[in-house]
C-alpha cells in the first residue's frame, strides 16, 4: 500500500456536486413531512400525554449521534488502511454533525423526562451514555484542531476514534451496571417499534429518514469545505516555495 495513494478528490467533488442538491432537497422534504406529521396529526399517548411527540426528534437524533460515530469509525479505518484522504476528511466533517445530534438527543431526552422524573437531569443510563459520547466527540474534535500537519492529524484522530469506540461501548455497559446500583431509574423504552401504534411508527420512520438525509447532506457540504481547505493549504505552500 503506497503511502501516497489517494481517493481522487476531484472525482469526489464532481460527483458530490450533482448529488448534493438532490440530497438536501430530499432531506428538507422528508424532515418537514416527518416532523409535521408527527407533531400535528398524531394523538396523545394515554400515559405521557403530548410529550410523546418529542419522540420524533429525540429518537432520530439519538440514532444519528451513534451512527455518525460509527461512520467516523469506518472512515478512520479506511484512512489507516487505504490512506484515502477523502475518507479522513469525511470523518473530520462528520464530527460536528455528530456532536450536534448528541446535544439534541441530550436536551430533548432531558426535557422529555422532566415531567416524569421531576428533575431536569436524571442519570438515566441511556441519557448518561449520550453524555459520555458527547465527551468523546469533544476529544476527537479538539485533537483535530490541535495538530497542524493534516496527515499526522488524520492518523492520530483515527487511532483515537478506534480506541474511543471500544471505550464508548464499555462505558455504555458500565453505565447500565452503575445506574442499577444507585436507584431504579425509570427506563423509558425509546426503542422504536416497541408496542407502538402504527400511527406513531410511520411518522417516526419518516423523521428518521429525514435525519439521515440531513446528516448526509451536511457531511457532504462539510467534506467539500475540508477538501477546499486542503487545496488552499497546498496552493499556499506552493506559493511560499515558488
Amino acid at each position, binding site marked *: 500500500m503506497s503511502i501516497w495513494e489517494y481517493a481522487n478528490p476531484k472525482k469526489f467533488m464532481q460527483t458530490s456536486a450533482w448529488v448534493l442538491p438532490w440530497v438536501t432537497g430530499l432531506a428538507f422534504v422528508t424532515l418537514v413531512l416527518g*416532523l409535521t406529521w408527527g*407533531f*400535528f*396529526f398524531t394523538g*396523545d399517548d394515554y400515559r*405521557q*400525554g*403530548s*410529550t410523546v*411527540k*418529542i419522540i420524533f*426528534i*429525540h429518537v432520530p*437524533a439519538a440514532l444519528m449521534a451513534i451512527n455518525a460515530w460509527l461512520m467516523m469509525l469506518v472512515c478512520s479505518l479506511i484512512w489507516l488502511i487505504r490512506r484515502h484522504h477523502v475518507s479522513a476528511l469525511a470523518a473530520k466533517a462528520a464530527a*460536528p*454533525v455528530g456532536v*450536534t445530534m448528541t*446535544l*439534541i438527543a441530550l*436536551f*430533548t431526552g432531558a*426535557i*422529555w423526562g*422532566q*415531567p416524569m422524573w421531576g428533575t431536569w437531569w436524571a442519570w438515566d443510563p441511556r441519557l448518561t451514555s449520550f453524555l459520555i459520547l458527547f465527551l468523546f466527540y469533544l476529544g476527537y474534535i479538539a485533537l483535530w484542531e490541535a495538530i497542524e500537519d493534516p496527515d499526522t492529524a488524520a492518523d492520530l484522530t483515527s487511532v483515537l476514534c478506534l480506541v474511543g469506540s471500544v471505550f464508548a461501548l464499555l462505558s455504555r455497559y458500565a453505565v447500565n451496571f452503575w445506574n442499577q446500583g444507585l436507584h431504579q431509574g425509570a427506563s423509558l423504552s425509546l426503542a422504536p417499534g416497541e408496542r407502538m401504534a402504527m400511527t406513531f411508527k410511520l411518522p417516526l420512520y419518516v423523521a428518521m429518514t429525514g435525519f439521515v438525509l*440531513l446528516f448526509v447532506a*451536511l457531511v457532504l*457540504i*462539510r467534506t*467539500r*469545505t475540508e477538501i*477546499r*481547505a486542503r*487545496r*488552499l493549504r497546498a*496552493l*499556499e505552500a*506552493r*506559493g511560499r516555495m515558488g
Partner: protein
Amino acid sequence: MVELGKYAGTVLGAYGVALGLILGLVWLTLWQGKRMRRRLEATERELGIDG
C-alpha cells in the same frame, strides 16, 4: 391547532431546542463553506490557476 395539553411547554421547548441546534449547524456549515470557497478562489486568482 393541535391540542398540546399541560405538557405544551415541554413539547415546544424540546422542539425549539432541537430545531435551533439544527438550524445553527446548517447555518455554520453553509457559512464556513462559502468563506472557504471565497478564500480559495481569491488564492487561485492570485496564483493564476484555473479552479
